[in-house]
């Protein structure tokens, strides 16, 4: 057992927190959400200089070859700051898929750009079926000569509105396959979808999109295990993000409870409010620890890691959302006004609660591990 962060991780977290505190203040978040559809290109350029997009990419391709847990910690920090960035999509979901499945030519073509951040990738998995399992995939891929034709609709695609490259999960005769599709491919129409989490979601309509054989990532029909693994990473990243969100909800509520005076005293001196603050901190700490545990199980190949992730997501989804409600309640009217920043964290909590399956659905996964074995 070792529940401390490594020296490198402590340094990474410390520098990321300082950096985001300076470079991603709430005013920038507001600007990005209200005027830039949830993406700050200026901030992205700065994190590219820090090397965040290439954290999981091998040094040979311009990355730094760090570990998944390191990236999850960055997700937590981005959740804290509500950084309007496609970091998880591009660096944690897509880059490892290309690195593990890609041909030399594909790696050569895409990894250096992903590592530098010049290229932004999004995982185009979900569809109107609104589910994260293989059954949810119906977008068709059909061979035509040496090319492939893609037909279907992707929806809820995070960062799909801004990505340069789409890693598309499709169904061909052999099963689930992955395709690397440039966002400007002819026949592909994308439309940004406003979302409560400002997570740059898009609808992607594929009408006979023709891609070459060099777009097929990995073997035809054999991609599901890698997609499922990306779902695990995405779910964990959401848990970490929510832990970061919860920490801010707690800290801001405590600060407000100390400052706001009613009946001649700080409202944090009333037990009703003090206990709500205590519950907020419990939500934040338990969300973080249970997510760290699930990540430890996943990364160490512990049997039952999927159930551990399901339990962590069930817990964080529900508890962080409740915490966000309590935080809004403690701030009351002042944070009900749009000028106040708190609702950005409330909104992010809701988005994170629902994305990668909410508590209701994750509880089913946790139960299945115990009852259906």
């Amino acid at each position, binding site marked *: *057992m*070792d*529940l*401390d*962060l490594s020296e490198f*991780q402590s340094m990474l977290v410390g520098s990321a927190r300082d950096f985001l505190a300076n470079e991603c203040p709430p005013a920038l978040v507001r600007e990005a959400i209200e005027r830039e559809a949830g993406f700050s290109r200026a901030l992205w350029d700065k994190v590219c200089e820090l090397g965040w997009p290439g954290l999981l990419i091998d040094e040979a391709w311009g990355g730094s070859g760090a570990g998944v*847990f390191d990236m999850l910690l960055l997700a937590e920090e981005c959740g804290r700051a509500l950084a309007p960035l496609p970091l998880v999509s591009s660096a944690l979901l897509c880059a490892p898929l290309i690195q593990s499945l890609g041909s030399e030519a594909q790696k050569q073509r895409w990894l250096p750009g992903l590592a530098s951040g010049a290229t932004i990738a999004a995982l185009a998995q979900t569809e109107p079926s609104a589910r994260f399992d293989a059954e949810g995939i119906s977008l068709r891929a059909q061979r035509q000569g040496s090319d492939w034709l893609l037909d279907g609709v992707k929806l809820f695609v995070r960062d799909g509105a801004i990505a340069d490259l789409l890693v598309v999960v499709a169904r061909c005769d052999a099963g689930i396959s992955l395709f690397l599709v440039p966002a400007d491919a002819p026949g592909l129409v994308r439309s940004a979808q406003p979302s409560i989490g400002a997570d740059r979601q898009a609808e992607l309509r594929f009408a006979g999109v023709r891609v070459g054989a060099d777009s097929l990532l990995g073997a035809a029909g054999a991609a599901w295990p890698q997609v499922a693994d990306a779902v695990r990473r995405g779910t964990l990243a959401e848990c970490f993000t929510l832990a970061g969100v919860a920490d801010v909800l*707690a800290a801001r509520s*405590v600060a407000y*409870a*100390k400052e706001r005076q009613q009946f001649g*005293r*700080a409202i*944090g*001196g*009333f*037990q009703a409010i*003090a*206990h709500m*603050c*205590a*519950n907020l*901190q*419990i939500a934040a*700490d*338990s969300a973080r*620890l*249970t997510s*760290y*545990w*699930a*990540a*430890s*199980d996943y990364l*160490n190949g*512990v049997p039952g890691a999927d*159930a*551990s992730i*399901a*339990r*962590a997501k*069930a*817990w964080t989804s529900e*508890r962080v959302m409740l915490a966000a409600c309590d935080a809004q309640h403690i701030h009351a009217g002042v944070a009900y006004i749009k000028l106040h920043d708190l609702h950005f964290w409330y909104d992010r909590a809701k988005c994170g609660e629902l994305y990668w399956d909410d*508590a*209701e659905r*994750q*509880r*089913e*996964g*946790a*139960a*299945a*591990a*115990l*009852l*259906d074995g």
Partner: protein
Amino acid sequence: MDFRFAPEDDAFRAELREFLEHHWPAEYRGGNEFGPGYSSDVPLREAEFRRKLGERGWIAINLPKEYGGGGATILQRLIFADEMSYYGAPYSNTATGYVAPTLIKHGSDEQKQTFLPAITQGAIDFALGYTEPNAGSDLAGVSTRAVEDGEGFLLSGQKVYTTMAHKAQYLWCIARTDPKAARHKGLTIFIVDLKAPGVDVRPLWTIDDGRTNEVFLDEVRVPRSRVVGEVNRGWYVVSVALDHERFNGFPLGNQRFILDQLVSLVKTESWGGRPLREIPWVRAGIGEASARLQAAQAIQYRCAWISLKGGVPNTEAAMMKILASELKQFTSHFASRVAGLYGTLAPGSPWAPLGGRLVRSVRGSMLSRFAGGSNEIQRNIIAGRGLGLPRDGLG
């Protein structure tokens, strides 16, 4: 970041489980001392079990070897408490986990020589004499008086919910030595011989068929050598002792046991011609219980880790206590709802599922919310000590 136990810790857990399977078999588990089904061989079984524990050197597993303890690591102590709790094995943490560490820190040489070997051999046990009818969460409000008299003190007053007092040899008792001093400052810790003249232990039966006690003290003579730490510095000794209690005071093994039992019930029983395992709300409840367990365990491991690094888990222990007690209440009541009408049947009915354990656990689950510092006190600790909110209204 690694939540896995080391191979030697896993091996220790396996050894302990095997020991418990053998020496505290299923038919002994989940029973209560004096409830229906109580038989006179229970004390004999417990004594025999204790002897077996002693043979392995596990009675005072947490204490340093130099004091005759098992010298176990913090993680092994966590595993020990967890598995003992899972198996419902008879074990009191009071003497070994609470009194002994405090004596090592604050006791006189004579007290250490007198009490520590007896504790580590399992020859003596202690009951905690803190709570009084008018001093519960507000412990500094105790009114038991200790008046100096010659070479010692005369103690008079009443303690309540003094669990173990009918089995233990000694009472670890807080009493007021200076009624004029500020509330926290006039208190002293005494070791009171429960067989001394003037001590009267009377049973109080709990709603889940357990026994606790009230202890009446009527001019009980306690020699000066039985004062722990300094006179009027008892609050300080208590605070240190409470930190010891926090570390392993709420083992989660019992929660794992209840969940395992519930899972086995759900996997085998049906309702309305439908297997319970196929009913969505049943599955949701099982999933929720397992998620809550993981969250409580994660914080428990964090507490152990802080201790291992030489710290004292304060707010973390408070969080863990809250989550553990809420989990217990959730799981107990959910299990009884799964059982439906069968959930009404109490021990004694041959129809009662899990030998009537459901009814007992519905009743018993209340205890953890208020015992060991009520959940409100725990939230006060988090809010005041942890978050720095104004403490004047937080007790």
